[in-house]
């Protein structure tokens, strides 16, 4: 679809802040549009798994990207972060709307998630994640992939070419950091 996405990913990885932001915007717009499209089709599922959406996005974008299009892992790293933003925005908006929604995304298998999570809690998690991302980006990425996008340990391990055990360990570490950070913020 868009060869310059790879260019932006490349530049962003080299520390180009403007490229990183442009990438975020482009991915956000793209995912948003894809979600709309998927849900707008006749016979579309009422809710759309985030993982499905991300797979679609990857297929879509890499198709026109040529051989230099980044592999799944690198793509997913960015896209998962974007997906976090979309989910939080969506949760915030769904609270705000009385009827209908832009689109429904379920990120976990259990439907209980939909009703239970407060968007402000999500926002707090997101803020803490951003902090963690500055210290250990791979940890934040695991949380994005697992919690917000619903990938399993196995899938994440495959994408990153590491063992499942490693992914689990990263997950535990990340949880420790987030838990501590959020509790600390709460008690002033």
């Amino acid at each position, binding site marked *: 679809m868009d060869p310059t996405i790879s260019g932006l990913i490349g530049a962003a990885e080299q520390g180009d802040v403007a490229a990183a932001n442009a990438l*975020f915007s482009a991915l956000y*717009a793209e995912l948003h549009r894809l979600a709309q499209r998927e849900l707008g089709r006749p016979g579309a599922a009422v809710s759309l798994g985030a993982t499905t959406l991300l797979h679609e996005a990857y297929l879509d974008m890499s198709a026109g990207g040529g051989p230099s299009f980044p592999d799944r892992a690198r793509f997913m790293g960015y896209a998962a972060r974007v997906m976090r933003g979309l989910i939080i925005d969506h949760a915030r908006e769904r609270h*705000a709307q009385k009827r209908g929604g832009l689109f429904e995304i379920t990120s976990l298998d259990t439907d209980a998630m939909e009703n239970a999570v*407060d968007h*402000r809690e999500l926002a707090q998690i997101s803020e803490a994640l951003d902090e963690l991302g500055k210290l250990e980006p791979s940890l934040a990425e695991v949380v994005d992939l697992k919690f917000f996008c619903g990938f399993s340990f196995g899938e994440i391990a495959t994408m990153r070419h590491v063992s499942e055990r490693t992914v689990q360990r990263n997950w535990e*570490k990340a*949880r*420790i950091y987030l838990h501590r*950070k959020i509790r600390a913020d709460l*008690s002033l």
Partner: protein
Amino acid sequence: MSTLKPDEWQALSPYLDQALAISEDERAAWLSSLAEQNPALAAQLVALLDEQRVLAQEGFLEKGRVELPGAPGLAGQTIGPYTLLSQIGQGGMGSVWLAERSDGRFERRVAVKFLNIALVGKGGEERFKREGSILGRLAHEHIAELVDAGISVTGQPYLVLEYVEGDHIDRYCDQQRLGVDARIRLFLDVLEAVAHAHSNLVVHRDLKPSNVLVRKDGEVKLLDFGIAKLLEGEGEDGAATALTAEGGHAMTPEYAAPEQLMGAPVTTATDVYALGVLLYVLLTGQHPAGGGFRSAADLVEAIVHTEPTRPSDIVAPTGANAEETTTNAARRTTTPDKLSRLLRGDLDTIVAKALKKNPKERYASVTALADDLRRYLDHEPIAARPDTIVYRAAKFVRRNRLAVALAILAFAASVTGVVATLIQSRTVRAERDFAFQQLALAGATNDLNSFLLSDAAPSGKPFTVNDLLDRAQRIIERQHGNDASRVQLLISIGRQYTTQDQDAKGRPLLEEAYRLSRSISDPSARAQASCALAEVLGHGDQLPRAEPLIQEGLRELSNEPQFAMDRMFCLLRGNEIARDSDDTGLAIARAQEAVRVVKQSPLDSDLLEFGVLDHLAESYRAAGKQREAIPVFEQAAALLASLGRDNTETASTLFNNWALALDQLGRAVEAERTFHQAIDISRADQSDRGVSPMLLINYARVLHSLNRLDEAADYAERGYATAQKSGAGVIVNQSLLERARIYDDQHNPDRAAAMLAEVEPRLRRDLPPGHYAFASLASEHARLQMERGNFVSALRYANDAVAIMEAAAKSGKGGGQFVPGVLEVRARVELAAGRPDEAAADAARALRMFQEAAQPVEHSRILGLAYLILARALAAQGKGDEARAAARSAAEHLQASIGPDHPDTLSAQQLAGLETQAR
């Protein structure tokens, strides 16, 4: 519990890796050996690992329900001397619990309200306690008492309030069927309470029915008093969050004062406004800003700009809302007519004064409002002075100069009926441009919520201006080093104000942004600053200063892809300014280039494309190039549909403009269809609420041209009524002229005359003497006289019309495109008065002018009718062959543009087929 500093985490991280890699059993041994080498580190690790066990048990981030650690207590827990019984709600800033004293002493039950710590902020503890004691001193029979305040052992701030069981005041009044006087008396209790608080320097900030309860015994109790004030952090100098959050998100701002929505500091006058809204609701059963809003952005717009309809008018029964007014009146134990009479006069005045947009014009205090209400109850004269109509109309003209200019363009008498664009369209476009701009400036704000804040949701979606401004300001504070970011953020906020028509607030920010930008080198920020400043200057009639700024901005930006968004921004602003300066060529050139830029950009998206195509189409249309405009309109509409936004405000505007272009080309059938679509979209319900009056009149005009006279009259009348309601004087004039034309064609000259009688003094008051609108007026008089058979008089008027129109056109005051129209009317009069030669001459001249202006290959109603008049005149002169030729052309044009069944089409066909002279 302290947070981990980054360097602490870095130190611990590798050890955590190791600890988590080994089993629990091995871990104990490993830890003790670590403790020997580095006790401090080991201790921290142990704490973290303990925490990990807890969170694993809790299922933190695993299960569906995400409980934040440290959330407030469950039933049975104690808070100070109270025991929590049950949760009674999710209140403004946290959960609310019913509680009673733990020692069993029989005192009243209380409501314990937990506040979300995230909102109190660091260092809020002391301030919280201080505020608590101030509020505790607010003892008043009509205020729910604040019994206690504190911070729980888990660090959760809470308030203990008197528990009130009662109904919201509006529901109470309706259920009890209280009449107007009884409601006012109850309302006076509310005012007493608020006045008491004000005298203790406490402002409520959130007065609305759900915060004013009435107990079964009829006692009024105000809730949530000054709670918002408690949550301010230090150093925010009174600028509290404007709108309460229910469950953490923004509510619709129905009781918010205009200044609250603009982010100005909240004062006692803000409470007066909210009380005004409450009084309005209690008296009428309706909201002063009206109803049926498609989005909260529209509601905000209405609150800030639209003068509320007088209470006596809104309760009066009219055709559409008879049922509603009857119900509302019944709830006040009366009928709509009687209610209207009761409210007329003093109560109208009192409510109006409480609801003034400008806080300085409102009642200076709640006590003053209460005094006037008491005087009303005692039948004494009140202190407030009523508005005069002149004052209201004058204000409208000043505030909306550009809109007025656009609307006045629509004063064309003639058959062609050239029209104006929707007044709203400019604001809607600006809001959308701002959303694009936000997308482009994601680097600066790092906040893509604005992408969702554009009119993506068709209806009911709350939107707060303040959300965006708050976010932006917080970001400015975080990023204080970097000047380019600062400039961009100032621009963001400044533009946000200008799109809300708050140029006075936006302009200083944009001037500052421009000033700052001169000393940095980043071309993107420099260009944006120039062009954003140009935009706001253009609004303020400083077009001469605006244009050079646009050029300056464009010069900064090379053609590299990274500047694509900035180029687009400058080109679109430049396009708007060129349009305002009537430099149509430049406007078109800039819009075309913007289209090119977007198409070549990596960030090209349907949304961005739509934004530029919309500008391009409108630029063509305004330049009279309807033929070029229409395919662009079609493209834009298709994009909107594929974006799923074809039932939004933007779409309605687009369809209106498109339909105008079609109408101007004389493609009436297509225009009718497209106008209808525009109306359907903007209609929120069965009534005309939400539909722009100009759109209704445009539609009436096209129906008129299709000879659907009864429908046309209906729409024109509705446009008139809606325009009256919203105080849009110039549109009222439009509607009167159009109605006159319709009534003429319905052979109802008396009604037509009444319309002209009504509009003439208005025009004389608002416009300078040589204005071409008077030519239109004269032309209408001519038609009226012709309808009555007074040909001499008609001819005199027709001559006047031509003279005025030509003079105006010659002196460059516009009206040039309307000259053929008045010539055509004169031709008709001359024909009817038995002067075929003059008729033929005028008709031929008019036809020539139309042909020059129009694109010859189109089938056009305008040309068709011109041919028809000419044909009739030629026939009257005895020039049969020429007449028939003209009639054939007429028939061809008319058949295609207004349909084969239209009387004019039939007439033309008849004329074309006859051997002998026609009538």
